[in-house]
């Protein structure tokens, strides 16, 4: 460890409380949504981070924060970042937790060097500028990732609600994934439109691919079935697995006179009978 590095570690070790106070003042200015986290928690985070930082500077290399001596610092930053992400901090506000420590540290360094205040000032300005640019890049990156995800969700919305024709007069609607309200709206509209287009008599709604059926999902199903009924079409809900059946019973949801089947095959057989068809095995001629 060189002398400069030792000096930096000493600086933190000798002024833990004043440094922490100055840092928290900076955080109060730089971070927009301070109401997301209590004073006590923030103080605890600052204190813990300073302690670990001091230890890492004293025992590790400044150039390589991936080294084992920096593990406690990295672990703690991970914890701090995850906590902030959960509380709804933006990426920039999260990164500012680290960046805002610069100013108090630089001020101490300036006090130590005493004479060349101009140089310290310039270094400070430059580094602050670069930090802001860095943060900007991160923010933009994060935003564009979110946009991609949102677009993919929209595409999924369209893709995952196909209405397929199984037979003359029989439609099937295999549902997969989460039935949140946006999607259910699309499902309902698509199904009712296709009923009109194909002149169908029976529609099978298959929920094999829906992992959770809570009261909202049940309500959406009931509404869809009722709307179809008004159009003279009978709906069969299939794909009710044992665990879903037990859960619906405990929830107390009454599916009333909705026809339900355990699997799609059962529902298809029922639907064929409703349109006046039966299935028979091909008889061997020989």
């Amino acid at each position: 460890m060189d002398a400069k590095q030792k000096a930096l570690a000493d600086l933190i070790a000798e002024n833990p409380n004043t440094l922490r106070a100055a840092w928290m003042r900076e955080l109060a200015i730089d971070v927009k949504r301070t109401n997301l986290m209590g004073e006590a928690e923030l103080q605890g985070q600052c204190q813990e981070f300073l302690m670990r930082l001091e230890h890492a500077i004293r025992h590790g290399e400044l150039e390589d924060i991936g080294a084992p001596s920096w593990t406690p610092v990295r672990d703690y930053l991970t914890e701090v970042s995850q906590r902030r992400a959960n509380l709804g901090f933006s990426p920039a506000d999260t990164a500012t937790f680290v960046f805002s420590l610069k100013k108090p540290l630089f001020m101490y360094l300036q006090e130590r060097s005493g004479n060349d205040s101009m140089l310290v000032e310039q270094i400070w300005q430059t580094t602050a500028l670069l930090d802001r640019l860095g943060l900007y890049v991160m923010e933009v990156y994060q935003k564009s990732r979110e946009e991609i995800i949102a677009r993919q969700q929209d595409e999924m919305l369209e893709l995952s609600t196909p209405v397929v024709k199984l037979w003359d007069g029989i439609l099937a609607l295999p549902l997969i994934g989460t039935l949140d309200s946006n999607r259910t709206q699309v499902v309902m509209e698509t199904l009712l439109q296709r009923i009109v287009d194909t002149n169908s008599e029976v529609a099978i709604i298959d929920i094999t691919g829906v992992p959770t059926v809570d009261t909202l999902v049940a309500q959406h199903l009931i509404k869809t079935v009722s709307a179809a009924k008004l159009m003279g079409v009978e709906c069969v809900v299939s794909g009710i697995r044992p665990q879903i059946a037990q859960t619906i019973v405990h929830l107390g949801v009454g599916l009333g006179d909705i026809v339900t089947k355990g699997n799609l095959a059962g529902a298809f057989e029922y639907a064929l009978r409703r349109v006046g068809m039966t299935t028979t095995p091909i008889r061997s001629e020989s």
Partner: protein
Amino acid sequence: MIVTRHESLRIQDEDEIVKIRQQARRWAADLGFSLVDQTKMVTAASEIARNTVVYGGGGTVDIEMVQAGDRQGLRLSFVDAGPGISDVELALRDGYTTGSGLGLGLGGARRLVNDFEIDSRPGQGTRVVITRWK
């Protein structure tokens, strides 16, 4: 009772309800819950999480793996700072709702878990704790 694993998540919108369901399912699976028990706990979590968003205006959930004696369980504590519930007994009654749902969520969730606690007063927000033991 010892908490062996803990995570806090916020609940502000529908997407985060999905996240809580997924996390509850993962933790229930880690605990070795049967498929039926997993589904019951996840469904109860979904009901309470939705209430937190729709009626509580958003809040947080603490997901915890707990151990009491030699039994293990999954405990979810939902907290919001919303308007609160003036008559908890009425809110728990099947078919009663101040919104547009079926009015079965709260009472249904209580039947899906082993331990159910609700603490709410008008203007004080609502706290619901559900636990399911393995």
